[in-house]
């Protein structure tokens, strides 16, 4: 059985010394959602993401991730394989080819150093399976032909595709992305956004067949257009007018879903952006 919520964020506050960054954040992320966290730089959206990854522990509150084995949400305690992460940079292991990078997680998860040393033959068979899975995953993210290249030989956009495949092959409960396309040029960025929309389409197809949606995504971005295009829900954080008390959720709405194939409806995105900005970030000034 799988719960409705992939992630439950309950009363998260985070201070660095006397500097309060997050103030009592509550949110439930449903399975199959693509939630975009937006907000001005320094508003704590990356801090919140790091709390979800488990690399930062909140000052108070808990974050729980749905655990299939225990059939209940389990509080986050450090980074774990139920949460995949794609960073803006240092996304890939430089010493592994693209396909080996994707198979890397399967190896780490399913084997140990001891097993690989003691059972070389069994490990070779298993490795073969891992590489088959990895190849299929690379094909899916559109990188089939570059699978034997090293990250140093790949462009920024290709690296991020591999990084997404690397996270997805682990079938994480949630895919976390921290400004994943921030360093890419406009065209590459849009093609990767469309990749995210394709993943969302798989969710819709699974739902139509009564299955569990496979991809839950949290994407942190400072670009509201990207959030609107990729996300089906936008959560805006802001500490405008309350700098010393930390950021709170100032906006949390469902968004229309765009199709991965049709051209970007810039007018519609712009009009949604206007309303987001008005409700989220200008309420204090008016």
């Amino acid at each position, binding site marked *: 059985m799988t719960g409705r919520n992939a992630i439950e964020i309950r009363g998260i506050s985070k201070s660095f010394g006397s500097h309060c960054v997050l103030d009592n954040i509550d949110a439930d992320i449903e399975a199959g959602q693509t939630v975009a966290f937006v907000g001005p730089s320094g508003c704590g959206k990356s801090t919140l993401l790091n709390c979800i990854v488990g690399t930062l522990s909140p000052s108070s509150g808990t974050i729980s991730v749905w655990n299939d084995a225990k059939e209940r949400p389990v509080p986050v305690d450090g980074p774990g394989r139920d949460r995949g992460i794609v960073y803006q940079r240092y*996304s890939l292991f430089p010493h592994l080819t693209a396909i080996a990078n994707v198979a890397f997680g399967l190896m780490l998860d399913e084997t140990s150093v001891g097993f690989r040393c003691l059972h070389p033959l069994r490990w070779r068979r298993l490795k073969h399976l891992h590489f088959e899975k990895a190849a299929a995953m690379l094909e899916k993210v559109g990188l089939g032909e570059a699978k034997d290249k090293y990250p140093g030989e790949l462009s920024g956009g290709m690296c991020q595709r591999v990084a997404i495949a690397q996270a997805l092959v682990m079938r994480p409960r949630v895919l976390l992305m921290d400004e994943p396309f921030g360093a890419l040029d406009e065209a590459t960025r849009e093609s990767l956004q469309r990749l995210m929309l394709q993943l969302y389409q798989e969710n819709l197809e699974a739902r139509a067949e009564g299955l569990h949606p496979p991809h839950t995504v949290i994407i942190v971005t400072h670009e509201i257009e990207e959030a609107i295009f990729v996300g089906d829900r936008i959560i805006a954080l802001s500490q405008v007018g309350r700098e010393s008390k930390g950021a709170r959720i100032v906006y949390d709405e469902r968004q229309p879903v765009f199709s991965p194939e049709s051209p970007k409806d810039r007018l519609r995105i712009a009009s949604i952006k206007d309303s987001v900005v008005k409700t989220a970030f200008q309420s204090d000034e008016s």
Partner: protein
Amino acid sequence: MLQSPISATRRTVLGLLSILVLLIGYTVLSGLKHRENPEDKTIPTWTQLGDGMLTIIEKPVPTNPVLAAALGPEVQRQDQQSMLVRDLKATGTRFLLGYGTSVVIGLILGTAMGSLLSLEALTIMPLRLASRIIPTAALAVFFVLAGTDLSMYVAMIVFGTLPAIAIGVSREIASFPRELRYKAYTLGASHLELIWDAFLPVRAPEIIEIVKSTIGPAMVYLLAAELLVANQGFGYTIRIFSRKLDMTVVYPYLLILAFFGFLFDFVLRKTQVKLCPWHNKLG
């Protein structure tokens, strides 16, 4: 324009020219010296150097049976080997044992230090202090503590190079990108797997570079100790012949040592290319 590229042919020709100039310069210098004193051995002629090399590689003839008997079977057996073989064995054993120990312990210690910051905090001060002490100047300490046999040379090389290796390796491991470390954990890595499958392979090129940079110092420390106290080995032979102002053996020996320097460098460079094919493909 400065730094304009040159052709490969020009590079080769200029390189060969430099060697030619060295050889001619030496011959002229040696000729001048021998005009004053035909017996001179400080800048030997090519013939003298040839004789010196024969001394090095030929097995010594037991000229004086009485002396050989007096020196005992130990010395007799040693005399069955040519000078070069004898010295290679002695110096080689000391070097491989000392430097091998240093590299293995340095790698393990450095990796552990780079991974566990408490261990780093605990060990960094003594290591820094040790790395500042000049091993050749502290030779007397090694005599007292480790005698004058093999263990002294090993201790000397380890003391001289281990701090540099451990500190260098720990720095490389500690500067492993945070994002990649987090990522490895989200992919299900254990602590051991993080070290074995991420830290070490990703930092392998830099670690090999560190090892490469300590070979020179290791040889310096070993040779210095041999020059002072050994009764066989490269340093010993150089000391004996230098005392007689006989360079016919010393010059070839210096070249042989330089050759080993080149060899180690070459082997490590090849290892780096072989182990880290991705390294030179970084954009």
